């Protein structure tokens, strides 16, 4: 039986209390919304690109501890990565939280704190909300640019 501390690891609680890169971004190249109609969780992800590389990433919104901490850790994990590297990290992360594989080698180790999510199928969407928004921001060219 899973217990609360397996899901709510101290790193997650810390990022929930004090999310990193939690701010709107002036002069962003890309932005995308993540919205979960099931629970009303909503966040925006902003990106600044340097060629193919994520030069800066930030987010803001409202959500549960899992979605907020996941967004926060995502920003720290993908900053400086290329579009393709970020996509690879998301794929590994997704496999891990859906129970289709352990933490992969190409995934930043700090993301492993979300491994417990696989025991809570209803919370997978919370953990991946910001990642889906990131993916959509990377794939959607900014019409203003």
């Amino acid at each position: 039986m899973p217990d609360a501390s397996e899901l709510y690891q101290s790193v997650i609680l810390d990022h929930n209390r004090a999310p990193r890169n939690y701010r709107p971004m002036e002069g962003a190249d890309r932005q995308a919304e993540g919205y979960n109609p099931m629970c009303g969780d909503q966040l925006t992800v902003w990106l600044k690109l340097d060629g193919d590389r994520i030069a800066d990433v930030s987010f803001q919104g409202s959500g549960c501890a899992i979605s907020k901490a996941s967004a926060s850790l995502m920003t720290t994990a993908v900053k400086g990565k290329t579009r393709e590297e970020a996509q690879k990290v998301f794929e590994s992360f997704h496999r891990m939280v859906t129970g289709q594989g352990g933490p992969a080698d190409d995934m930043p180790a700090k993301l492993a704190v979300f491994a417990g999510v696989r025991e809570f199928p209803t919370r997978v969407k919370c953990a991946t909300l910001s990642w889906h928004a990131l993916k959509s921001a990377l794939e959607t060219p900014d019409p203003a640019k």
Partner: protein
Amino acid sequence: MTLSSTRGRTAVESRPAGLDMTQLRSEFPILRTRVHGKPLIYLDNAATSQKPRAVVEAEADFSLLENANVHRGVHALSQMATAAYDRAREEVRTFLGANHVSEIVFTAGTTAALNLVAQSYARPRLRAGDEILLTGMEHHSNIVPWQLVAQATGARIRVIPVTGSGELDLAGLNEVLTERTRLVALAHVSNVLGTVNPVRQIADRAHAVGAIVVVDGAQAVPHIRVDLEALGADFYAASGHKMFGPTGIGFLYGRAALLDAMPPWQGGGGMIQNVTFEETTYAPVPARFEAGTPPIAQAIGLGAAVRWLRSLDWSAVEAHEADLLAYATERLAEVPGVRLIGTAREKVSVVSFVVDRVHPHDVGTVLDLQGIAVRASHHCAQPLMRQFGVAGMVRASFAAYNTRAEVDALIEGLLEVRKVFA
């Protein structure tokens, strides 16, 4: 060969006065199960209530031993099925105190019942300039069907506001309920706040301007004795699964004169009198609104649920639920950071709350791990969430079978939530 019914294995027709909790809980086997290794504490009754043996057995016995289609065959089983289906309708009529059995239409649930009124009663009648009056505490199922009508007809939707304590603010009622109002749709009991709305008072004002009154009774029927005459409702909708009955079945009560004048909404078998390729004449109500093979076993289960409800000593049920509400309200106040939302004077045993700096989903998950089932979401009432400035709430909703010990478990669970998110 003579067929005999085996229904009624679990006799609930006669009970001693009062509420024998041990007996009552023993009728719900699920209450003895475990979740995550902990005894189940089921406090999500407003989402769906558990079902007593009497209901499940009525459905199962029909399906295993008496199954046939209704209103079709000349054979014995079909006649028995038809009689059982009709008896279920009569049970619902008695339960509501409706005048005639033809005023009870079986539907898939409250949502289907409200959509039937919207599409068959309101849509053909409303015109641009007409108004539909709702309240700020409606479930989406009592908002969206009326928006569809408004979009199709040009009618306008207006809203009775909700006060900070979760009551309808009737001070400005004359401004929103006017000669232009054709229809008022409101919840008898709020699924979030537990508020019991003054339906009679609003119905009298609505009738005075010639509007009809549609009541969403889904959250009322498991908690209070409904008396249609006293309420003044023209339509009243509810769902079987929130009143200890099966899913997939509910009902719409409509005044005979209103139902008689309504065209069918869905066409098919069972709702016709005569069909040619040129023209079809429709069956009288309620068959006119029950196209296709109805959910027969579920209707019979609903009939059993109504019989089961009527077997309870309702003074004792109301006293017990009032005690649970008062006790839960008092104990929630002991948990630091918990804010109760909905403190109406007239309330059923539902408590919604938020926990300071903890998202409702996280509260729900930590409680779940302790075997406690609550709802944590926007409760299909997003306008109400916006009014209270929250994305969601935690809701513990009690039924007659819940106990003070389960309230204590909820409080322990919330203290654990505080600890995890300290």
